């Protein structure tokens, strides 16, 4: 029998295992591809077509998706090779050299890798179209069209190619350590990794503490790197915690002989399960943590969609007349506002001078508008920061120390009198591309006299019910766009950009955008969450399957001593509960702690997301409970069937099927 034929026979005999492994890999590649092609779809990323808030919602999930793809493929590969290890032991007993084994590993795995990538890309091509279509049902994607770029294919191939090459390479290196005895014994002995002991667990907890502490101190929603580092640190922490857990459990059980006896089987099973499944449990913890954390935040934002536009926009609708732009007649305006769904309550104005990089306001005007009593001294000015966020943002906005007034009489330097954080008006687009300064009357008048055509007028409209202003806002925007087109010269030579810059800034449009991006976010995160849930189920299944033979033997032995079906069910359920629920509880707890710490323990801020986190976590836990019951039932049934069917187990040693035909 030739080597090639033997390898093929082995391949045939293991088809089922290969199939599961192959399906998992292709599925991951398929989803990855769909994400990547959406993520890089030029239309979808065009802010004129799709609101940036919407497309931005893809960033975090895709990042997580990438991390996941790496971990999942690496894990699946490892689990798969573990299945094969005892086969290899047997083959080596039969006289195969480790060189031959390496050849088998290389052949099998590169075949699977290649097949997975090809299938994944094929299925991904179809699936990404479907994915795009479903998304178009959830959000307004403008005129964006579904398209696939060569780049998506190349990137996916590169991404997974590197993973596979690395994993296979490492395994080939590890085969250098293979020896027959170890391979055969591996199935009998509980794995004892070098990372264990009580100290390991403590160290893990310390790492977790550090990452949470760092989150509290340095949290910044824009700093993805810091989040990723902390995520990494806390995952290492979880891994170490799990590594040390069995030793702690043993210590606890050993303290009381009663508990020791009562949990004799449980603790030895658990010891084995935990020892072997640390990576799986860490992976699931990571998936649960990410899903709960992200969906908690997104659900909260969507649920909270009314508060944010109100906070960000002190007026219901605002727009600015400047440089001849937007100067629609009062008649046109009142025609729109008078025929809306809700009556206009007030129409205020704020005059300013637009010096492009600087927008200059008069202290009196602001006082009149908002009822404050700011007073700018002679030769001074006030920096104005239009921000609505809390305290932590203040140190991110530097204070400009001097401001030069360029007048025909010469340069006149004003000195800062301080920085003012106040959401004085809506952040209207053409007002936000510059710094805001407040000056006193003398300077303002001098400036105004020399910049007659740069005088802007901010129009601030308030209605009875801002939530009914969608129609008014839309009409107003088209009136403004029409006016600008008919009466002024285009600044950008691009109608869409022009409309964007001189559009209104209203509560209602921000609200609608938030809701839309929330819908999209919820869709994406639910999708990702479902994939992760599926992945965690598969990972659990893999991990349980790796042990199936060993468990069958164990229950066969116990059956011969005498064990009731109820006891079998209990013995299966114990370690399964830990396997199924420990990572979920850890992940949910971690996500909750992260949410609270990212709000710096301001309970009023943290409470909303906190509840959502628990809610989402609870939903996932519910799914998991269902999965647990289903899985445990089937597994227990199969196990019972197995031991009852085992009629002549005594002399016939549990033989490993030998599939080599000679």
């Amino acid at each position, binding site marked *: 029998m030739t080597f090639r034929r033997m390898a093929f026979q082995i391949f045939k005999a293991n088809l089922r295992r290969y199939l599961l492994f192959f399906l998992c890999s292709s599925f991951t590649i398929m989803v990855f591809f769909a994400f990547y092609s959406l993520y890089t779809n030029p239309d979808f990323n065009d802010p004129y077509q799709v609101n940036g808030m919407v497309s931005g919602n893809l960033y975090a999930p895709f990042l997580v998706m990438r991390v996941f793809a790496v971990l999942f493929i690496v894990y699946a590969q490892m689990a798969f090779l573990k299945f094969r290890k005892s086969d290899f032991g047997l083959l080596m007993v039969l006289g195969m050299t480790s060189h031959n084994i390496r050849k088998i590993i290389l052949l099998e795995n590169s075949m699977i890798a290649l097949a997975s990538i090809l299938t994944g890309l094929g299925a991904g091509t179809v699936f990404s179209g479907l994915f795009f279509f479903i998304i178009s049902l959830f959000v307004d994607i403008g005129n964006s069209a579904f398209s696939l770029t060569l780049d998506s294919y190349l990137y996916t191939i590169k991404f997974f190619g590197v993973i596979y090459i690395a994993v296979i390479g490492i395994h080939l290196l590890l085969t250098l350590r293979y020896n027959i005895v170890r391979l055969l014994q591996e199935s009998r002995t509980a794995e004892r990794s070098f990372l264990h002991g009580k100290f390991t667990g403590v160290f893990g907890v310390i790492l977790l503490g550090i990452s949470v502490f760092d989150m509290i101190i340095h949290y910044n929603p824009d700093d993805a790197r810091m989040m990723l580092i902390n995520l990494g640190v806390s995952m290492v922490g979880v891994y170490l915690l799990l590594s040390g857990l069995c030793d702690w459990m043993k210590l606890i059980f050993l303290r009381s002989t009663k508990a020791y006896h009562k949990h*004799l089987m449980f603790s030895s099973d658990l010891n084995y399960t935990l020892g072997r499944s640390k990576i799986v449990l860490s992976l699931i913890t990571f998936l649960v943590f990410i899903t709960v954390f992200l969906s908690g935040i997104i659900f909260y934002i969507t649920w909270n969609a009314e508060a944010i536009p109100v906070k960000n926009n002190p007026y219901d609708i605002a727009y600015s007349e400047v440089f001849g732009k937007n100067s629609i007649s009062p008649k046109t305006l009142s025609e729109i506002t008078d025929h809306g769904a809700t009556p206009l309550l007030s129409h205020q104005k704020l005059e300013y001078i637009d010096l492009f990089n600087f927008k200059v306001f008069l202290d009196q005007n602001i006082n009149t508008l908002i009822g404050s009593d700011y007073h700018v001294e002679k030769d001074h000015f006030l920096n104005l920061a239009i921000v609505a966020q809390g305290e932590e943002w203040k140190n991110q906005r530097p204070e400009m120390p001097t401001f030069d007034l360029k007048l025909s009489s010469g340069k006149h330097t004003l000195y800062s009198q301080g920085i003012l954080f106040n959401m004085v008006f809506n952040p209207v687009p053409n007002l936000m591309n510059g710094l805001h300064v407040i000056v006193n009357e003398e300077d303002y008048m001098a400036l105004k006299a020399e910049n007659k055509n740069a005088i802007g007028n901010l129009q601030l409209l308030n209605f009875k019910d801002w939530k009914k202003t969608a129609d008014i806002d839309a009409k107003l925007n088209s009136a403004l766009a029409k006016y600008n087109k008919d009466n002024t010269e285009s600044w950008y030579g691009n109608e869409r950009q022009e409309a964007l810059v001189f559009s209104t800034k209203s509560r209602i449009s921000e609200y609608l955008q938030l809701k839309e991006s929330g819908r999209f976010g919820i869709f994406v995160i639910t999708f990702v969450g479902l994939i992760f849930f599926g992945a965690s189920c598969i990972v659990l299944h893999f991990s349980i399957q790796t042990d199936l033979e060993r468990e069958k033997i164990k229950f066969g032995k*116990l059956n011969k001593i*005498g*064990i009731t079906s109820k006891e079998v069910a209990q013995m299966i359920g114990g370690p399964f509960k830990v396997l199924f629920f420990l990572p979920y509880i850890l992940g949910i707890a971690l996500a909750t702690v992260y949410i609270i710490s990212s709000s710096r323990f301001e309970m009023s801020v943290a409470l909303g997301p906190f509840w959502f986190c628990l809610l989402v976590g609870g939903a996932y836990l519910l799914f998991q409970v269902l999965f647990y019951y289903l899985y445990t039932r089937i597994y227990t049934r199969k196990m019972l069937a197995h031991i009852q069917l085992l009629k002549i187990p005594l002399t016939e040693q549990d033989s490993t099927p030998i599939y080599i035909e000679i």
Partner: protein
Amino acid sequence: MPILEVESLSKEYKGKGKMNVFQALNGINLSVDSGELVAIMGPSGSGKTTLLNILSGIDTEYSGVVRIAGTSISEMSKNELALFRRQRMGFVFQDYNLLDSLTLRENIMVPMVLDDQEVEDINSRTDETLSLFDLGEVKDKYPYMVSGGQQQRAAISRAIINGPEVIFADEPTGNLDSKSSSTVMKTFAKLNALKGATIVMVTHDPFAASYCNRVLFIKDGKMLLEITRENKERRAFFDRILENLAFIGGGEDDL
């Protein structure tokens, strides 16, 4: 007083085809008294394991009657049988049947732990049996770390931990070298003599069988004959066993 009674016990293994029925046991009658040490011998495939599996309730598909201590096990459900087996029988296997993830000491206490017995009882009984079988030094080792003889002695300890009415052993010395094998047999003899334990043992090994009071020979699922040791020397009984094996055929060359 018989502790184990078997009346016209038959067992068929059904193959895939309709006609493919194999008669593994064919009308076995058997009675074992309390305190007996009985060996069952016979060529490979004669149905010894099948018989023992039925007697111990592991196999429940058969026709005939099996009574242990007056209770008919044919009428029990599988779960009742499991409890009966654990609490009132002991079982020793050729492959020891020890759990790999437990130490020898823990393995020995499994039946008592499963029965949720008192901690003090478990500890005292376990330590007692450990010293009885000379396992004190290896008690905290895992099965794969100790010799076959030590594993089998641990398995015997486990079989007797619940003070069973009868102990079944299927080729308990089958995997052992002759030295370990005689230690194990001496252990059985000691158990039988000191504690009056009833032991029914399947063996291929005439030397092991010579430790017993009575040897039954079966072939092709039928009881062929039985011989008793009475007051003979073990050596003399050993010779008689060899004679009978030669008469039956297919004994030794089948090891």
